């Protein structure tokens, strides 16, 4: 019943928002909606930390520790995005950049987007999970093109084409896994429920149980396609190029949601498949795949961040870097690694969402995303500059934020499993990124001659969600209390 509520609350909020032209109370309604999703998620997490899993809707939805953790992450980021969305849409309507109808459509699509992500995370059937992830792409295409400028159109075209290709490859991978499940080794052709075409054989639990009997050849091809396919949605190396364009053109709350949590939902799918592949092929195969893809993303992010001139694109490349780190962490595969990866997902989601929302606010008050044209932010807008500054500090992996702790433990796990060289290369890339982002941040925050006087002032109320996001990220970095049991339980789901 709980799962059903989690999925339906954002959908209802979206439908209500679609019916009536946009107003502030509609914004608050969606924020409250996402807030309830977060609370339900926390309740779900509390339930699933010690008990294995909760089923619902006659087996279609299923929540174990891993998926409840993801629900919590989605809930937090959706709450922040919706809360900031009120300010974003309010300003847009005030400046007649888009009508109330268009804003209503925007809110509907955002809520549909959140619902698809929740279904993807809670789906028990891997095929249904694929359908939900594909649905998120469709929902976000129009959100990326929300501003209807030709740059936004170009970004959404690239986004949908590249992601659909990736997702099609992922579907091919899922089919191959299904094929392997239908004809497991050692059991001849007949396998309980094999011919019944029921959804049973694509269920994650049954696949995990049968993972040792899956044919290695087929699974190797399937895992490669899955890493390539879902990797596109995660923004990993070979098919990452859509990410900077889409995230820099999308409105701030949408890019916060996409960068903060959509990438990690796709990574959640990869984690599910990695658990099965490790059962069938042993950890070695998926480790090499993820290391190649992880290091590729890190190198791409490091090289392309050097000459960056747009702060939104800079943040987008940062997401590619962190996804590369998470892939590298998952490659290590030990339970400590997966726990650190999940903590990193939460930390990165919070920090990245706060940064994108802050960059949206900077775009509203400054009017441009060019770093050169926005100098000395700290002296002209102390609060906004402070939030952006501390966000960058969190993102660059400095204590007291949780990204430092998770990066440290990921390196520990990687070195323990013999990936010291990969950890070394990742640290060098992160050092280059640190130096480069420090240089860009220096100009943005400290800057040369202070620019024109701050004409439009950010109301104090607006910075509440941002500051609370940063405080939460710092709290998770320092206190082990709320997350430790949930992280361990989720890690044991992936690494039994």
């Amino acid at each position: 019943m709980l799962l059903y509520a989690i999925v339906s609350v954002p959908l209802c909020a979206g439908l209500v928002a679609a019916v009536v032209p946009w107003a502030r109370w509609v914004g608050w309604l969606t924020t409250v909606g996402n807030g309830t999703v977060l609370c339900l998620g926390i309740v779900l997490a509390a339930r699933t930390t010690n008990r294995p899993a909760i089923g619902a809707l006659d087996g279609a939805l299923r929540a174990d520790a891993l998926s409840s953790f993801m629900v919590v992450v989605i809930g937090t980021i959706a709450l922040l995005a919706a809360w900031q969305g009120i300010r974003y849409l309010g300003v847009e309507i005030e400046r007649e950049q888009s009508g109330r109808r268009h804003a209503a459509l925007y809110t509907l699509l955002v809520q549909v987007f959140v619902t698809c992500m929740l279904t993807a995370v809670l789906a028990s059937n891997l095929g249904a999970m694929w359908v939900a992830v594909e649905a998120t792409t469709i929902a976000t295409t129009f959100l990326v093109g929300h501003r209807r400028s030709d740059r936004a159109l170009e970004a959404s075209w690239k986004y949908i084409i590249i992601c659909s290709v990736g997702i099609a490859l992922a579907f091919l991978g899922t089919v191959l896994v299904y094929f392997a499940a239908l004809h497991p080794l050692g059991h001849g052709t007949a396998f309980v429920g094999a011919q019944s075409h029921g959804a049973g054989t694509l269920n994650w639990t049954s696949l995990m149980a049968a993972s040792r009997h899956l044919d290695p050849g087929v699974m190797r091809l399937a895992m490669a396609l899955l890493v390539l396919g879902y990797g596109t949605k995660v923004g990993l190396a070979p098919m990452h190029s859509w990410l900077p364009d889409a995230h820099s053109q999308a409105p701030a709350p949408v890019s916060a949601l996409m960068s903060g949590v959509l990438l990690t939902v796709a990574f959640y799918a990869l984690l599910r498949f990695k658990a099965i592949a490790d059962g069938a092929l042993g950890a070695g195969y998926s480790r090499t795949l993820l290391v190649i893809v992880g290091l590729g993303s890190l190198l791409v992010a490091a090289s392309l961040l050097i000459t960056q001139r747009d702060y939104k694109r800079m943040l987008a490349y940062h997401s590619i870097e962190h996804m590369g780190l998470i892939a590298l962490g998952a490659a290590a595969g030990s339970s400590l690694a997966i726990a650190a990866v999940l903590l990193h997902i939460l930390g990165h989601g919070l920090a990245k969402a706060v940064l994108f929302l802050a960059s949206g606010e900077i775009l509203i008050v400054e009017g441009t995303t060019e770093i050169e044209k926005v100098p000395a932010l700290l002296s002209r807008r102390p609060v906004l500059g402070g939030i952006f500054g501390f966000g960058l500090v969190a993102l660059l992996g400095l204590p007291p934020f949780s990204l430092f702790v998770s990066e440290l433990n990921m390196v520990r796990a990687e070195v323990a499993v013999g990936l010291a060289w990969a950890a070394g290369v990742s640290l060098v890339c992160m050092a280059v990124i640190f130096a480069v982002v420090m240089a860009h941040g220096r100009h943005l925050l400290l800057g040369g001659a202070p620019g024109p006087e701050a004409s439009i002032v950010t109301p104090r109320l607006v910075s509440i969600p941002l500051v609370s996001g940063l405080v939460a990220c710092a709290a998770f970095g320092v206190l082990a209390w709320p997350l430790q049991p949930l992280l361990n339980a989720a890690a044991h789901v992936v690494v039994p």
Partner: protein
Amino acid sequence: MSGPGYVDALDLAAGAVLVCGVITLWRRDLRATVSALSLQGIALGVVAAVLAAHEHDVGLGVIAGLVLVAKGIVIPALLRRLVGHGPGSREGAASINVSASLVVAAALIVVAFLASGKLTALLPDTATHLTPIGLATVLLGFFLLVTRRKAVSQIVGLLLIDNGVALVAFLLTAGVPLIVELGASLDILLVVVVLRVLASTMHRTLGPFDLDQLRELHD
């Protein structure tokens, strides 16, 4: 439907899918590629129907009918209206000429055959022997996406990939579970609708445009 008739029908239909794929690569005229796409949709529907008959599986039969309608008729109709007449309907100077792309297509088909060696090894029956065709269609579709400049041909490329994946699904597992199959085809339909809307808005704002000119968002 069993025995030699089933095998011949299956081979014929799968062969038709592959041939249509090659045709889309070969012809430059957009209208011809769209009709090749609809032919391929129909052939895919026939494959599904033959399998349903062979397996006596009613669900697969329903899906076969759905595929016939959606991929054979509805989607090509959507695309034809987008193509329109006049100069826009011819593919501009592609990045590589036709003969080179055909040679690459041949190479891709060989690669598909090599790659699906493992699949046929697991279950050596008539359907699985044809999976390389599905994989080849996916590769052809991807190659079309990479080389062609017109928006319509990119949509056609994407649909080729989806047809390839659907073919592999039918041949290997006689269709994925019903819910998943329905969800997948619904998604593909929605993707085509979205692409259709995007392409038309771009036509309105940018005039007859070549995808390669879309380079404003760069580093």
